């Protein structure tokens, strides 16, 4: 039982560390698109770590199936729908006139948007 509790704490702590890393990236990155990349860090390993820890807790300590299914639904929902939102907001930001700081974009992309 002690090993189980240590495993749960370790998983949630890993999720918390990656969430902190993503938040620091959102606060300090120099560019809008880089901030988006850092925010992906929060929504993948942060969610997976905290979700796995909570799932172990609900299955082995609480022992209720309904709560475990709801935790799975939350994590699966965030993981499945997040790339669609990231894609939408990246394309919208480019369309609204925000460009990457360094000029390394290919010319084709600008052409495809201008036509």
């Amino acid at each position, binding site marked *: 039982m002690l090993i189980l509790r240590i495993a749960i704490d370790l998983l949630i702590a890993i999720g918390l560390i990656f969430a902190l890393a993503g938040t620091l990236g959102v606060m300090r990155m120099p560019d809008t698109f880089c901030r988006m990349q850092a925010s992906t860090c929060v*929504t993948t390993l942060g969610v997976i770590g905290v979700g796995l820890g909570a799932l172990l807790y609900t299955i082995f300590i*609480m022992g209720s199936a309904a709560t475990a299914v709801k935790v799975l639904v939350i994590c699966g929902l965030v993981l499945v729908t997040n790339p669609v*939102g990231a894609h939408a907001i990246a394309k*919208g930001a480019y369309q609204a006139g925000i460009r990457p700081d360094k000029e390394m974009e290919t010319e084709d992309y600008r052409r495809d948007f201008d036509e």
Partner: protein
Amino acid sequence: MKDLIIFSVCLGFVALLNIYRMIKGPTAADRMVAADCTDILISLAMMLFSLYSGRGIYLDIAIITAMLGIINTMLVGRYLDKGRWLYHADTEDSD
């Protein structure tokens, strides 16, 4: 288990750090990215608090929060993209 409430408070504090970018961010996309992060972190913190307190109602609210967050993000992204569909190769001719 006391650990869950400690982790929940830590997640809430990390979510508060995102408010800085939400206030300062120069463009709408920055603010929306920070708001999305805040939303997901608050949802996770609510999930851990629900497991700590043993009440199921917080878990339902966490599901609704996650759903509304993703809908907000797509709405603002589509607004910035001037109302076009995300993948408009097929639907452009019929619009």
